[in-house]
């Protein structure tokens, strides 16, 4: 063992040695403030004083790497942990409030939101919410300066729908877009919008009737991962359609307070003008929802009405644009309760889809399931071999499962191609 390693190890096992260390823990601390000082001090002054004391402490250079680590006593750790908790509660009160709003709807959430809202209301006037806002603003600016930008798929859609699209992360271009058929006829994939002017220019080109069909993939993680890729790569017949993916994991229609697809979709359709939308929603919707002040429990009559209305509103929004919509059903899930809820949601999707001539409900319960329609991780293919169709989590499609679903989706698309291109001409 070399010398450096030996010292490191000595530091790691330093507790016994530390006991013999003559320097009492108190000697390392800045002198405690008196009660009077504490009361008189404004917070910035107190911080400045602590910083001065600490700087003096650091500057004395009385210790070096050779010394053993300082171990804390329980009262000391309690002060530090307590300070962390209090400072975080103060500085992060807004972040915590956002967190509480995103908790599962229920009494617990209501209690947390109420408490944190109270705390935030107290802290706001004395300026304690400012540091977080400043930090986030600075973080945003640094991220943009470094080209990190916003979420590549929803440019401006996530934060507030009104905010201008930020410059895209450069890496998102080649990595996230599908291969483009004609560079000179490049349509404005969301991932490609470099600046507003270029976007407008390319939008006018879009009206060229010979432009390739645009397929928009929309939804949560069920379509974000392997299924989206499988659909995109299976659409290989010439002329290849342009595939745009607008997906956001952990979202759905039940929690517009967390992510509001209704606000994201209109600018997206305006920009992309898809002839076909393939969407998958619902995997995160088997949960209670809040409708105004009412708390609606999953499956109850009120819930059903409210959720059906949201599905209808989404379908109406998607259909308003003249394209066709393929609404994918949820597959059976491994957990029985989840499977049951998925089936319940599917019934709502199927029934609501009947109200819209452009919306096709795509039942895929039998595609990636056991012969009796139940959930199956492995399904036998035509050769009799078992192929894994679902991921370990019992929810998402595996690459092979995604391919199986994609094959059906793509067959449907080619079958309806003529009608789809009609739609494109009327666009």
């Amino acid at each position, binding site marked *: 063992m070399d010398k450096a390693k030996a010292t490191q190890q000595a530091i790691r096992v330093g507790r016994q040695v530390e006991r013999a260390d003559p320097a009492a823990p108190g000697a390392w601390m800045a002198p405690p403030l008196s009660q009077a000082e504490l009361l008189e001090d404004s917070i910035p002054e107190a911080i400045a004083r602590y910083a001065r004391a600490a700087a003096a*402490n650091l500057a004395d250079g009385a210790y070096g790497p050779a010394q053993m*680590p300082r171990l*804390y006593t329980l009262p000391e750790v309690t002060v530090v*942990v307590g300070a962390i908790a209090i400072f975080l509660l103060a500085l992060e009160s807004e972040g915590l409030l956002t967190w509480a709003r995103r908790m599962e709807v229920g009494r617990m959430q209501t209690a947390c939101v109420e408490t944190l809202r109270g705390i935030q209301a107290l802290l706001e006037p004395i300026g304690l919410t400012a540091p977080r806002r400043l930090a986030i603003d600075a973080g945003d600016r640094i991220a943009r300066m470094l080209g990190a930008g916003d*979420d590549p798929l929803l440019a401006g859609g996530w934060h507030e729908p009104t905010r201008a699209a930020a410059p895209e992360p450069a890496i998102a271009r080649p990595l996230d877009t599908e291969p483009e058929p004609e560079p000179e006829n490049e349509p404005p994939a969301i991932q490609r919008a470099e600046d507003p002017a270029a976007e407008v220019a390319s939008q006018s080109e879009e009206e060229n009737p010979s432009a390739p069909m645009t397929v928009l993939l929309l939804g949560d993680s069920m379509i974000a991962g392997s299924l989206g890729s499988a659909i995109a790569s299976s659409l290989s017949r010439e002329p290849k359609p342009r595939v745009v993916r607008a997906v956001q994991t952990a979202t759905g229609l039940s929690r517009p307070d967390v992510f509001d697809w209704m606000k994201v979709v209109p600018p997206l359709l305006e920009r992309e003008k898809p002839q076909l939308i393939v969407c998958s929603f619902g995997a995160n919707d088997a949960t209670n929802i809040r409708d105004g002040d009412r708390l609606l429990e999953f499956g109850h009559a009120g819930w059903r009405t409210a959720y059906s209305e949201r599905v209808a509103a989404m379908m109406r929004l998607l259909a308003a644009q003249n394209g066709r919509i393929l609404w994918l059903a949820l597959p059976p899930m491994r957990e029985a309760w989840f499977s049951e809820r998925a089936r319940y949601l599917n019934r709502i999707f199927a029934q609501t889809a009947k109200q819209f001539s452009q919306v096709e409900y795509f039942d895929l319960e039998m595609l990636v399931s*056991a012969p009796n329609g139940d959930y199956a991780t492995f399904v036998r293919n035509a050769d009799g071999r*078992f192929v894994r169709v679902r991921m370990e989590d019992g929810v998402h499609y595996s*690459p092979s499962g995604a391919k199986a679903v994609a094959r059906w989706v793509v067959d449907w698309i080619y079958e309806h191609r003529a009608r789809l291109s009609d739609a494109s001409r009327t666009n």
Partner: protein
Amino acid sequence: MLFPTAEYGIFFVFVFAVAWGLRRHLRAHKTLLLLASYGFYAFWNWRFLPLLIGISLLAAAVGRALQTAADLRARRALLALGVVLAIVTLIAFKYVGFLASAVVNLLEVMRLHPGAVELPEIALPVGISFFVFHAISLIVDAYRGRIPVRVTVLDALLYVAFFPQLIAGPILRAQAFLPQLSKSPDPEAIDAARALELIATGLAKKVLIANFIAGRLVDPVFESIGTHSGLEALLAIYGYAAQIYCDFSGYSDIAIGSALLLGYRMPDNFDAPYLAANPQEFWRRWHISLSSWLRDYLFIPLGGSRGSTGRTAANLAITMLLGGLWHGAAWTFLLWGAFHAAGLITHRLWAESETTLARRIRATAGWERIARVLTFHFVCIGWIFFRAPSMEAVLEFFKALGRWNNVPSISAALLLALGIGLFSQRFPQMRRAELRQRFSRLPLMLQGLAFAAVVLLIEALAPQGIPPFIYFQF
């Protein structure tokens, strides 16, 4: 409950206060920690709690019996019983579907059509690979007489389920951890500066580096490998090397730091693994608690490296294949294990080789550096097998590596994240110790403020989108 969430922060502060408050009542203290650990687990899925408790009780019963049994044959029988039951449980929950489908497929390939077969649908319990390995460690350590304290049911339950390590390690040794549980944690000697450093760096690694690289580079490439160019694929491999290191070591850091604040010590799990100069050294630096577990409970009982070269190679291969499969029930993990076994065997042959050429190369100035670069790239190739979702995807990935048709533009942010993710390991430990020491001399309130400020900064710099303090599964 995931570590980088508000839930965990609130949970931890509560556990910290109550556990230390009960420190004078050892049984109550440990019961509280045990209940907190079960709560932590149930937050995920309470349905598997009976399994977790059952495995722990098995380990406790067999461990206790082993400590009192004097007859060697009885001891061996107990050992076999305990280990076999633990492994059968692991196989039943993790590998049945994979093994059965492999058998059916093999029969189909051999044209012996097996007819209708129904595979059981068994959900994978979170953390099962870890808690079964803990149980085996307890049983084997008791058999070897290495546990210096009496195994009690409460201690065994808490050792297996202790929440900082429950979901993703580090894997604790019964011989090292049970003695810690036999007395109250020392309220006079808490390594809080190191704990805070580990938690802060762990958070930064996980939230700022791993999540960012995963979302922006690695996931998009691995999801649709067929559409990407060679350079993109190459970047994705480096990206994944940084991501998996930051993700996993970050998680371990937070686990070790949380335990330290409660007064318990856990072994280091990562030691700058990408600085390794050969595959053997890599395994001494990567996921140390697993590799040393495999060494002590599998490789050495198999005969280790005491036999012939062939025997040693076979032992290495068995250890690494099973170690690969431990990470997941899929051919890709088996292939990853095989790849590392091949690397370890090749390195052993090379290190033992006394040919002039070998000696001359080893004596070359800068060979150490070259060896490091080679080892890093060897590990990176391994990560392709590890990350690819299927065997076809592995093939597609290698095909993509040959397509040099377009040059991706990469953002400065991503480059920075990659650089920090890969090269932060070079930051010298001594310097870290020194900084830690300086931090520990700041006024206590200022230490708290500094930590809170770091958390705030991490949140502010985290990729926006779905905020970090949220956990939905899908």
